[in-house]
Structures are given as structure tokens and as C-alpha cells.
């Protein structure tokens, strides 16, 4: 069964503000800054998921740590940063697949909404 997480209104509004304001400033900043806003937003969401009691805490914490370590490469190592974005997408896809194939204790493959 997919587990719910707790998200406070303050957390939701903070994430909402990040998304809306990022959309605005993407209209005048270099396009690749937009990738940074998205990956930074992912880090903020991971923080909420971790604090909200999501399962797979270890994987989420590790993924967040990697994002927070490497997102700054956008400024110092553009090539490494873009490579990291590709790898992060693959890493997340692998986790999604693992979750989709996970078998619950009753022997039924778990899916969202179970």
C-alpha cells in the first residue's frame, strides 16, 4: 500500500511560491537556470517528504544529498552539472521502477492508490 505523507500548509505554500516565482524569473534569466530551479525545487520536495514521514527515508536522504551537493555545479562545472541531471533522472526512474515492482507482504505488487 502506498504510504501517505504529511505536508503542512506552510511547506505547501513555500513550494508553491518557489514554483510560481521561478516561472516568473525564468522569463529573463538564462534558460539553463530553469533546470536549476527545477532540481532545487526537487530538493525542497524531498525535504518535505523526509520530514513528512515518507517511506524509503534512506534513499530519499541520499538522493537529496546528491542533489544538494551537485546542483551548485551549474555555476562551476556546467558539463558535470548537465551530466548529473541525466544521471539524476535515471536514478529516480530506477527507484520508481523498484517501487512499482515491489511486492507487498500479501504477495500483491503495490501500485499507487493501493
Amino acid at each position: 500500500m502506498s504510504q501517505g505523507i504529511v505536508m503542512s500548509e506552510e511547506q505547501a505554500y513555500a513550494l508553491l511560491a518557489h514554483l510560481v516565482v521561478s516561472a516568473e524569473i525564468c522569463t529573463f534569466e538564462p534558460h539553463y537556470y530553469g533546470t536549476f530551479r527545477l532540481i532545487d525545487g526537487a530538493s525542497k520536495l524531498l525535504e518535505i517528504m523526509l520530514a513528512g514521514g515518507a517511506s524509503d527515508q534512506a534513499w530519499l536522504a541520499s538522493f537529496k544529498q546528491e542533489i544538494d551537493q551537485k546542483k551548485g555545479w551549474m555555476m562551476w562545472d556546467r558539463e558535470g552539472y548537465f551530466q548529473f541531471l541525466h544521471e539524476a533522472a535515471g536514478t529516480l526512474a530506477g527507484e520508481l521502477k523498484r517501487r512499482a515492482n515491489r511486492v507487498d507482504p500479501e504477495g500483491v505488487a503495490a501500485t499507487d492508490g493501493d
Partner: protein
Amino acid sequence: MATEMSARDTRADTVMEVIRTRRVTRSFTAEPVSVDHLRTLLEAARWAVSAGNRRIHKFLVVRDPARIQLVRAVAPGMLAVPTALIVICTDTVKAAAEQVQLEKDSSTLIDVGTAAMNMMLAAHALGLGTCPVTSFSQSGVRTVLDLPDSLIPEFILLVGHRAPQRRVLRQGASTKLTVDDLTYWERYGHTTPE
């Protein structure tokens, strides 16, 4: 004469040391910045060059954590949580009085930069950390800080005490630029003074 030269060299060494060792701070402690230190930074800004000595910028200091969080909500470039902000604003009323054409006159933003740089160097000399932020919503910052329509927030300086930070770089990441990478002498394309 020798003493005068020595004093001049020492002063230049001191200034260059501050310039070379300053870094952007991306993690701050919760320790507040003293009013005396903030006043020193504002004094540094006041001594910055200003085109035509027009002085069309105002500085808003924010120390209230709740207001800092509100600014952070509308400033995606504000990755860290500092204990103080100094927001540099263009005063459009003063600009109009000085006949400055804000849309055409690049010196307006250059003056923001010189004031900001003076503050960052002064902060570093005081042992404080700073981070410049330009990625924010002007309308958002104006709203959360209750700024009048006549003030345009141009730049946010995060100020605080530095927390330990570790920058992890990829092996083989790009190398640092040198002065020669950035400079021409006398004519475009000439990379040496000879």
C-alpha cells in the same frame, strides 16, 4: 621614502588579500549580525562610487527572521538562510529628480554593483559571510517588504556568520580563469603588454 613605499605595499597587500580570499557564503549560522557590523557595511556602501554622485539607491536592512523567510519564499536564488539582508533599491523619485533615464542608463545597475562589492569586502574583512542574490521576483519582494512603488528592489545581500561548507567538485572539473584569459592589451586580441 622607503617607509612610505613599505606602508603602501602593506596596504595593497591587505586589500588584495581581502579581495582574493572572499568567497560566496552558502551556509550561515544562527548567530545574529551586530548592528555595528551592519552599520560598517552600510558605511562601505556609502563610500562606493556613484555615477555623477547621484546617489539614487536606498538600502533596506532586514533582520526579522519571519520577514527574511518571506523574502526567501519569493527569491529562488536565496538558497541559504542568513540572519540579515541588505536590499539595495533604486529610488525612482530621486532618479527622476536627477534626470536619470532608468531604462537606458546602465550606470544605475553598475552603482548597485559597486555598493554591493564594497559591502561584501567589508563583511569579509569583519569575518562575516555574504551571498549576492539577484534571482528574485521584484514584485514579490516589494510586496513582502511593504516597499512603496517608487522603490525598485535590485539586489539582495545575504549577511551572516559563516557555517562550515564543503564544496564537492567533480574530478577534472574546469580550471580557474586567469587574468590573461580575461584581458587584452592595447588592442583586441593582444594578450600580453609587450
